[in-house]
């Protein structure tokens, strides 16, 4: 399972390195990341730009992780590709997650 976890003061940044979150890996993806989230108990920022494809099993894993978040702590999904964004939009799950575009280099400089 490919992901990098960085613990900053304010949030847990999870860089997802898997290109596909599909039925083949959804369960282990969910179990491993749930353990990380519960251990740190911080707001989570998931960096999603490496993920090219997600099916409804992958979406189910993301929803399970959202539900595993301790109360009052947010989960942001950053830099989703159009293919992945479609799954959230069609299932109306885009209203449940805090979805943000990846900051461009220029914005980061400002």
């Amino acid at each position, binding site marked *: 399972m490919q992901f990098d976890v960085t613990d900053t003061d304010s949030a847990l940044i999870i860089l997802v390195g898997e290109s596909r979150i599909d*039925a*083949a890996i959804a369960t282990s993806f969910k179990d491993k990341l749930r353990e990380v989230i519960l251990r740190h108990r911080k707001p989570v920022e998931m960096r999603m730009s490496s993920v090219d494809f997600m*099916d409804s099993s992958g979406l189910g894993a993301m*929803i399970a992780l959202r539900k595993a978040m301790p109360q009052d702590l947010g989960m942001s999904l950053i830099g989703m590709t159009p*293919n992945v964004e*479609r799954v959230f939009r*069609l299932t109306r799950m885009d209203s*449940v997650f805090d979805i943000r575009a990846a900051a461009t280099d220029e914005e980061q400089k400002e």
Partner: protein
Amino acid sequence: MTPVGRQNAGLTGAVTAQARPMFHRVLPASPESVRNTLSDIRKRFRTNVDEDAMGRLELVLAEVMNNVTEHAAAVPEGEVMDHLPSIHLSVVMHDSGLSCAISDDGVLLPDECIKPRGLPVMDDADLPEGGFGWYLIQDLTQALCYYREGQRNFLAFSIPFADVAHEVGA
């Protein structure tokens, strides 16, 4: 054209024949072979199909084949699964979209999968983690039809190039 002329027609001759890519495969219903098949379909159609239609095709085919795979894994107690169901898949390109035919020798597909359906109930306190697959299939396909014959399920549908289903509904 003489036989020699045909042999020497070269690339130009092949192009004027207007050949379009198609895809056909028989695969076992396992998550790994579904994954490999989707990747090969993407390679096959990459130069002819735009990313938006390709993304919709890939999602629908994933949902259909995952469904066969998941139900194959859930064999009723007392029954022995001696082999994985085999999925037969064909994808053909035409002017307005991609036509797909899929059959499998897995368990009977319940009627409610094919009947028009909405999204699972959104309960903010307990969000649904499943039940999206057939909604996505119905939402993204046109002319979806299903029948069972003998030991096989047959499913056929089209993925339009332009996302006309949504434009009409809007």
